[in-house]
């Protein structure tokens, strides 16, 4: 069974996960028996098949809101969980050299399959203490400025950048506004557009609006299968447009924020498959899938000269949008 299964069990179980989790508990109970007769072994096999089929069935028709719940699953792997599995000799670097070090944003150097890379990402916390320290992955201006400082360094040394997006949004607070949250996000968008090195952004959980995009301007944009990416949280959209927080599921569906939605809208380049039942069920397998996608895209991008890379990146964003010119010419 998946090596990280014990971790998933500690985390709360979502409603739609429950039938499978209950079956699995039953299987575990049977396995605990000191003596397994042939009959019990067959029973276990049957139950395992049923659990697999049930999971496939449930996960083949998830609603957008269920995907939001998976993207926010407390047991879901976070940036550092992937970093520890796919980056060797990762060395975290701290601080924006202006004000502070923001633990909601991590950045560091390391090697992806031998290639020196800069790795950035928002980091949520798992324990209450860590959640507090990391502000549940909601970075302040110093977080975005740390990212910018490190990206600038990567550019000077010609190293590719891997960004992992996982945040409810940039932090909306008094101190963040005082220190120019809007300017910090904006500056990153401008700087990333002009960086002369390959950038790959992967949404691994919640792609929360400008706070995610601020490390998300890239040559390739990937999304994990059950991650989401949107202009505003479903709760925010519901309270403003639907006049009721309770209609968040409706808002999640209306905003088209799942990975297949973004692929259809032409925003992302690839959907990275997660472990059956979601990334939290098997960290290692999901990390291997992510590494495989990164390997392919890096191989495409590394040979490109900086000027071409920048032009292609400009054109990529230049095409984003949907409108008509009077006369009916659609774009």
């Amino acid at each position, binding site marked *: 069974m998946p090596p990280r299964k014990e971790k998933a069990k500690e985390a709360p179980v979502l409603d739609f996960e429950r039938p499978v989790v209950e079956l699995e508990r039953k299987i575990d109970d049977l396995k605990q028996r000191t003596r397994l007769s042939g009959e019990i072994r067959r029973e276990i096999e049957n139950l395992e098949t049923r659990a697999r089929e049930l999971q496939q069935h449930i996960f083949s028709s998830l609603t957008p809101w269920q995907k939001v719940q998976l993207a926010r699953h407390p047991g879901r792997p976070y940036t550092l969980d992937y970093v520890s599995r796919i980056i060797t000799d990762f060395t975290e670097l701290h601080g924006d050299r202006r004000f502070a070090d923001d633990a909601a944003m991590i950045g560091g150097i390391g090697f992806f399959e031998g290639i020196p890379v800069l790795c950035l990402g928002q980091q949520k916390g798992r324990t209450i203490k860590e959640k507090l320290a990391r502000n549940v992955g909601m970075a302040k201006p110093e977080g975005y400025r740390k990212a910018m400082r490190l990206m600038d360094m990567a550019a000077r040394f010609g190293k590719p950048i891997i960004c992992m997006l996982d945040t409810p949004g940039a932090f909306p607070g008094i101190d963040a506004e005082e220190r120019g949250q809007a300017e910090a996000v*904006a500056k990153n968008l401008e700087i990333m557009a002009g960086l002369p090195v390959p950038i790959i952004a992967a949404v691994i959980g919640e792609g929360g609006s400008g706070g995610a995009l601020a490390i998300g301007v890239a040559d390739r944009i990937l999304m994990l299968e059950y991650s989401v990416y949107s202009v505003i949280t479903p709760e925010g959209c519901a309270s403003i447009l639907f006049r009721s927080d309770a209609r968040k599921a409706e808002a999640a569906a209306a905003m088209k924020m799942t990975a297949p939605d973004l692929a259809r809208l032409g925003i992302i380049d690839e959907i990275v498959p997660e472990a059956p039942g979601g990334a939290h069920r098997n960290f290692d397998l999901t990390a291997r899938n992510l590494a495989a996608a990164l390997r392919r895209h890096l191989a495409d991008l590394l040979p490109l000269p900086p000027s071409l890379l920048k032009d292609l990146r400009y054109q990529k964003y230049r095409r984003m949008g949907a409108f008509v010119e009077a006369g009916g010419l659609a774009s």
Partner: protein
Amino acid sequence: MSDNPPIVWYRRNKKDEPALEKRSIPAGVFTKCPMCREALLTGEVHKNLDVCTSCGHHFAMATRDRVASIMDKGSLIEHDAHVESIDPLGFRDSKKYSDRLKSTRKTSGEVEALIAVAGRIENIAVEAGFFVFEFMGGSMGSVVGEKITRLFERALERRVPALIFASSGGARMQEGILSLMQMAKTSAAIARLREARVPILSILLHPTTGGVAASFSMLGDLHIAEPKALIGFAGPRVIQNTIHQNLPPGFQRSEFLLTHGFVDIIVPRKELKATIALALRWMGTPAVTTRN
């Protein structure tokens, strides 16, 4: 997490919302100033660029009036007026987005939330964009993003200054992720202007928040704000709901941003054109350099 912060938002004016108080001048012979409570002659206020003749309070200004107050008479060419929103998501809240667009076009008299013009300011050629707050809170969807990007590209091509008069609640939720990506698209165009040393002037009007604040609006060579404009990343209501604290007086107003270093200068409406012209004269015409 029900307290997840919406970072892009707009609101219709509501009595219980002090941050976005109604600033437009109601029709009628007299207008009561919400600041000094003086009863003013509406015609006089209008002649005074919609600024209170008694205390200097800045009322909301109709966007077409704004354009006329800044650009030299007879110098205007409007660009991309024919670029129109579609409904890429098939979005529907209490109303279909496509219907909302139709009715907003009727009430506002505008096709979209941005007017893009080429023209002159004290005889200096510029490319300028004016947000129409009257059009869905000046929200930025695909059309606004495209028009701004084209404006920046024309400014680069012609090597004339690019000006944006921002007044917006942020990204347009009805276009989902496409709206968010307009932040990246417009900022990428700014990167090219910066590289070519083409002047970028950001004029921050009441209110400028969300995705419009967190992209080109905060990337000017100069940030010029009208007095007491609300300028910020998150809306005050969102911040209050997140941190459960009272917000300090003057929070996120022009004066607050100036104190904290994000606005260069606060200029009353009547001096805005002259100040812009002075800055443009100082910056001069950018020397032609090749990109890369």
